[in-house]
């Protein structure tokens, strides 16, 4: 009797031959990218190179003109609720919902998927806010936070989803050096600890020593980095 061959688990995020156009203008020219579980990858590139478009396609916010995006081996469909369960974004600092407190901005990620927050959910939210040094401000509304605090709240919000893929677009842009490094460490530790794949679009080369790998994008083409 022979043992069944081991089946390798599907990678959290795979992009195969992904192209995307805005009208006539193609901005992604056939992207191939695989993120393994537990891996934090930095995506470098100048402004206008296609970083944000790549993240939007990887997260299902934009449909690729051609090619395929799979999460844990399953293609992303056009359904937002399905995609959001599998891919989480670290949104920009201004994207917190103004009529929810910081803690509620975390909880809402589960509420919109049809889950009523439990005491355990609240405890988890508090724990994440503690990790980004915002526990004391959990009950405040976003307009009572500084730009940096809002950005850290967005990071905690994304981590709260427990999605297998986490995408972040310039998550440290509005943070000072120490806070920026702390947030990057939090994201990479999240990848290591949970087995999630983290893709971090950034201009900040100081983040590179914390990530496992770097890829760069220029004029819609991906190059393996260093």
């Amino acid at each position, binding site marked *: 009797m022979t043992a069944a061959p081991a089946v390798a688990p599907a990678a959290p995020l795979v992009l195969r031959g992904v192209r995307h156009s805005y009208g006539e203008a193609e901005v992604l020219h056939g992207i191939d990218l695989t993120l393994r579980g537990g891996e934090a990858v930095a995506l470098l590139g100048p402004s206008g190179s296609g970083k944000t478009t790549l993240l*939007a396609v990887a997260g299902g*916010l934009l449909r690729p003109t051609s090619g395929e995006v799979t999460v844990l081996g399953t293609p992303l469909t056009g359904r937002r609720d399905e995609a*959001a369960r599998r891919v989480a*974004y670290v*949104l*920009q600092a201004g994207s917190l919902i103004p009529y929810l407190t910081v803690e509620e901005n975390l909880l*809402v990620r589960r*509420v*919109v998927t049809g889950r009523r927050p439990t005491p355990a959910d609240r405890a988890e939210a508090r724990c994440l806010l503690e990790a980004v040094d915002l526990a004391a401000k959990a009950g405040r509304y976003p307009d009572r936070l500084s730009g940096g605090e809002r950005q850290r709240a967005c990071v905690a919000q994304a981590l709260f*989803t427990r999605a297998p893929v986490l995408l972040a677009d310039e998550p440290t842009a509005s943070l000072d050096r120490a806070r920026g490094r702390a947030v990057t460490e939090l994201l990479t530790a999240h990848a290591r600890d949970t087995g999630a794949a983290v893709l971090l679009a950034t201009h900040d080369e100081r983040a590179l020593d914390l990530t496992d790998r770097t890829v760069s994008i220029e004029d819609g083409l991906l190059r393996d980095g260093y």
Partner: protein
Amino acid sequence: MSGREGFAVWFLAWREIRHGRVRFGLTAALVGLVAFLVFMLTGLAVGLGDAGVSGLRRLPGAVVVYSAGAERVLSRSALPAADAARIAAVPGVTAVRPLGQTMAQAKGPNGAFPVALTGTDGAADGIVLDRTLTPEAGIGQTVTLQPGGVRVRVAGFADLGSVQHTAVARVPLPVWRRTQPAHPATGVYLVDTDRDPAATAAAITGAVAGTEAVTRRAAIDAVPGYAAETGTIAMIRGFLLAVSALLVGTVFWIFTMQKEASLAVLRATGARARLLVGSYLLQVAVTTVLGVAAGFAVVLGAGAAMPAGAFSLPGSAAALSAALLAALALAASAASLHRLLTVDPLLSLGRNA
């Protein structure tokens, strides 16, 4: 929508209202103001309608037979006694009652007062006054009717209503005849029928020369001033309902535009469009219901302070107005649904990808 989605709808709707309570409160106040005006006009319309025709609504009969040329005015109509038998012979007619009604002046111990003098067959001896005339005379006292100078004893008071804003006073038909210079047998005939009233009215007009028969509804509409009064108020009420719809639609349209970024974030984080729509409609419903309830509460107070008879807001009229306000608010708020259903989650990235 499942219970879990129901919680999500409530979660989003309530927290936004809680945070924007001044904004939602002002919107509810605006709806309340319009609702107050709609309820007030409804009450005035019913009150004026009652003052104009309630005395006729309380009379029996499905068909009113006037003399030809009376132009459906009760006080101009005069018919001979012989017409009663002719009318009774028309197929479908089950009962015929004479009725005289004219405006008269009654002079009692406390002075003169106008009455809509109504003469009917079988009325008790003396004169029965509408309850609103209690201050004018007491039971057993004598009043003098003009024209005619007829003296009658007050037999009692009853809810007789009013006609053309004048309280009804009921006397036996022979007494009414004595107040009429031409002493006609009757003014009109009130007819019961076991067929369609309109068809019976047409049959009577065709069969009995010198008459014009109409349904009771048409007779009420023909009361001088009634249609004009109620029509004007109905038109103003219609405009107010349109204003309330525009108001709610516009306010929530602006609210929706202002929170487009938040809506995009919610969509990006997995909220289904129907959740956003449910939350939005719940906010519209809460705002409208609170506004309409506040408007109703205020109008009840205002109505109580108005002169008796001028304002009347029965439950059915109030419920209809409230339902119209709510339905129009929800219909107008539908203008924002397209925006809710098509909000682009890409906006949540905070830039154009």
